[in-house]
């Protein structure tokens, strides 16, 4: 009884061990099938993914969504391959048959599985009939990973600037940018009424509310230039009036004024105040009330205070506007003593002969060498067309954004560029060649001069090329 039970338990142990081995082999074979069927689809999908990745990196941006989609696609492919591979999966019985063949048991394991034979003893080594061929199994997989990683890491030019909304931002036309800068300076000075500033900002906002693509249309540029022109005139008028006021207040302070002079100054003061009232850029209410009060009952104390206030406002406005490209403040200072009308002189639009003092230094939009307002005015006047800004507006979304902020001209070394064939490139500065002296008398007479001097004189008329040709011919 004991020997039988020992034999039975031994057989049970052998059975479990052999089945364990068979299951191991089954797992290995089935995994190998999944890998085998997944190789080409994985390689193919990795290639496609790499191509898509490169395209995304080139033209768009690679987000986490892409990686998630790639992961899902790969998982789906592997799952489909698994479904196909399932048809070829082996059973434990087949694995036992493989082990039978491998160990040469003549199907004893199969018979033992069916309970018709004893389980054979386990061999000492746990050698398997098959092993996974690493090179064949993993090389396509590794290649796929390397392919995708290479596509993800390989240096590539960034996506074109037009792709992002930030990069595609279109700058305001120059005229409007300048008006905007002036508005800011006027607001900072505190001399201008809130209503006037609001009106000015409203006009700017109206323009900005249009589609940026239409800012550089001809009507829009016309409108921008008109706005700039008007604003410039209003500022000039404002500054002129303030200066006149300041001068008038200063003169009224003098004690040696005759009645006629005093009346003239008061008239000038009244005209200036009226002019200020008629200007869309009106002074703030407090200053206007002070002026009105001074005009009605001028006093020395008021005069001092008013003079000081006006001077401060005037200086600040001139300084700030000069910085922001309003080319008038310094010019007005230079031309102060010339006796001409300040308004007439300071208006860059009305005095093309004067040298505007404005420059691009204080204008953030003019960084990079934008021309001065005065110069631009001259250009626009001479060409008879509205200014179109710093450069041509971008008409299409190209990979390389146009150099809108550059006004540099590249030197063109080849003078023939743009010329028609046969067109004259230029005329040298040297004097035109003297016509050759008539040698008809020499030709008429028999040619007897064959001396060296005559030959030298004859040869001297040749060009270097002709001389070289003769030298070669007679060599």
């Amino acid at each position, binding site marked *: 009884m004991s020997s039988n039970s020992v034999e039975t338990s031994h057989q049970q142990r052998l059975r479990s061990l052999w089945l364990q081995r068979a299951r191991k082999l089954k797992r290995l074979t089935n995994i190998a099938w999944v890998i085998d069927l997944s190789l080409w689809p994985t390689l193919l999908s990795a290639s496609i993914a790499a191509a898509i990745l490169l395209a995304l990196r080139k033209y768009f941006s690679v987000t986490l969504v892409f990686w998630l989609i790639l992961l899902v696609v790969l998982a789906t492919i592997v799952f489909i391959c698994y479904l196909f591979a399932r048809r070829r999966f082996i059973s434990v019985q087949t694995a036992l048959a493989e082990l039978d063949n491998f*160990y040469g048991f003549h*199907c004893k394991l199969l018979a033992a599985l069916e309970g*018709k034979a004893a389980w054979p*003893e386990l061999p000492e080594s746990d050698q398997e009939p*098959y092993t996974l061929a690493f090179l064949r199994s993993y090389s396509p997989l590794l290649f796929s990973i390397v392919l995708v990683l290479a596509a993800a890491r390989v240096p590539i030019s960034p996506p074109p600037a037009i792709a992002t909304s930030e990069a595609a931002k279109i700058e305001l036309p120059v005229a409007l940018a300048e008006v905007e800068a002036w508005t800011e300076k006027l607001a900072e000075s505190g001399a201008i009424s809130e209503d006037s500033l609001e009106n000015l900002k409203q006009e700017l906002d109206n323009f900005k509310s249009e589609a940026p693509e239409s800012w550089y249309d001809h009507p829009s540029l016309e409108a921008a230039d008109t706005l700039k022109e008007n604003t410039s005139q209003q500022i000039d008028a404002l500054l002129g009036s303030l200066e006149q006021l300041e001068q008038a207040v200063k003169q009224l302070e003098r004690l040696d004024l005759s009645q006629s002079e005093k009346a003239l100054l008061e008239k000038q003061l009244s005209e200036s105040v009226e002019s200020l009232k008629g200007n869309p850029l009106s002074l703030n209410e407090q200053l206007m009330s002070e002026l009105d009060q001074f005009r009605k009952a001028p006093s020395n104390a008021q005069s001092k205070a008013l003079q000081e206030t006006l001077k401060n406002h005037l200086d600040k406005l001139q300084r700030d506007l000069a910085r922001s490209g309003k080319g008038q403040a310094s010019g007005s200072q230079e031309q102060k003593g010339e006796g001409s009308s300040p308004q007439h002189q300071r208006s860059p639009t009305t005095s093309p002969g004067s040298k505007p003092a404005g420059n691009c230094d204080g204008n953030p939009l003019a960084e990079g060498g934008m021309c001065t307002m005065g110069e631009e005015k001259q250009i626009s006047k001479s060409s008879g067309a509205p200014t179109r800004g710093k450069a041509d507006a971008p008409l299409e979304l190209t990979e390389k954004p146009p150099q809108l902020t550059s006004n540099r001209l590249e030197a063109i070394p080849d003078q023939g560029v743009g010329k028609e064939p046969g067109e004259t490139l230029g005329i040298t500065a040297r004097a035109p060649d003297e016509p050759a002296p008539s040698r008809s008398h020499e030709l008429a007479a028999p040619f007897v001069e064959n001396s060296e001097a005559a030959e030298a004189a004859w040869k001297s008329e040749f060009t270097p090329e002709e001389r070289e040709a003769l030298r070669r011919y007679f060599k």
Partner: protein
Amino acid sequence: MNQTSERTFTALDEKLVTEAKARLTIVKSAIERVIFGQSQLIDDLLTALLAQGHVLLEGLPGLGKTELVKTLAKTLKLTVRRIQFTPDLLPGDITGNPILQNTPQGTKFVFQPGPIFTNLLLADEINRASPKTQSALLEAMQERTVTVVGETHLLPRPFFVLATQNPIELEGTYPLPEAQLDRFLFKLEVYSASREVLERIVTERQIGEESQVEPVISQDELSQYIALTRQIALPQPVANYIARIVEGTLPQQSKATHGVKFGASPRAALGLAAAGRARAVLQGRMNVSFDDVEAVAMNVLRHRIILDYSAKLKGRTTSQVIQELLTETDRLDRSIPRTLQEQKLEETIDRVEADRV
């Protein structure tokens, strides 16, 4: 897996198989003392006996076919009858005839059994009889009964037909009908002996001298071994292998069957399984293996495949077809993925088996 464990193996079965192997080895040795140089042929004969299959021996006259059968009968202590098939042989000469006899009940026809009523029937030169006479053996070979004038008579057990035939190219021969050929489990080809064997025959035998062979096993023992053979396990993958081989013999089923007109029948599959079991017993195993099937496939299928004329003209033989088929057919009905690398066994299995013993 659980359902396959219902019929459990017993140590007694294994002991019986081992004993059968030993006894049949003795039989083989006894035959080899008379028939020289035909070891494989004797193995095949014993295999057919254990599988209860009939054998068709083909070879030129004088190669020892009849002597082999007679020796086998003696060693197995079986009753043996010999019928020399001739063109004028009638079916009644084989099966027996009803004869009018005076009996206590009166005069009536009494069945007189023919030579077929024996354990071992030696049908010598079977292809010299007409197809009609040859067909008289059909029922006996398949059902192991004989029906004469409406009366069916049971043949003795075991019953084997060992037929010899001359190559059909010889004069005065008739081809065996396909139906009868199919009833032979094996068709064995007998070849001329080698020079060494011939020398031994000349040295040890005299012409006309009857060989003296003692019976080795009894008829009961043989019946017991035959019953044991039927219990030998046929694993499902091996059965699948047999099915694929037989299916592969059908025309257009595989590359190997190019030129095949008719393939093997399901009887061939049964024959393969039975012969495989018998060989397993002779090898001392409790189960059929792929090797057993491969070993008997040639003998089982050789006479069951009919080639067309084009193949015959090209000199293609059924043996070639079977050899190609066996090479082409994988043992296991599965394919190995390319990502798997086949290994070679470092450890010899003999040692494992030795340890177990």
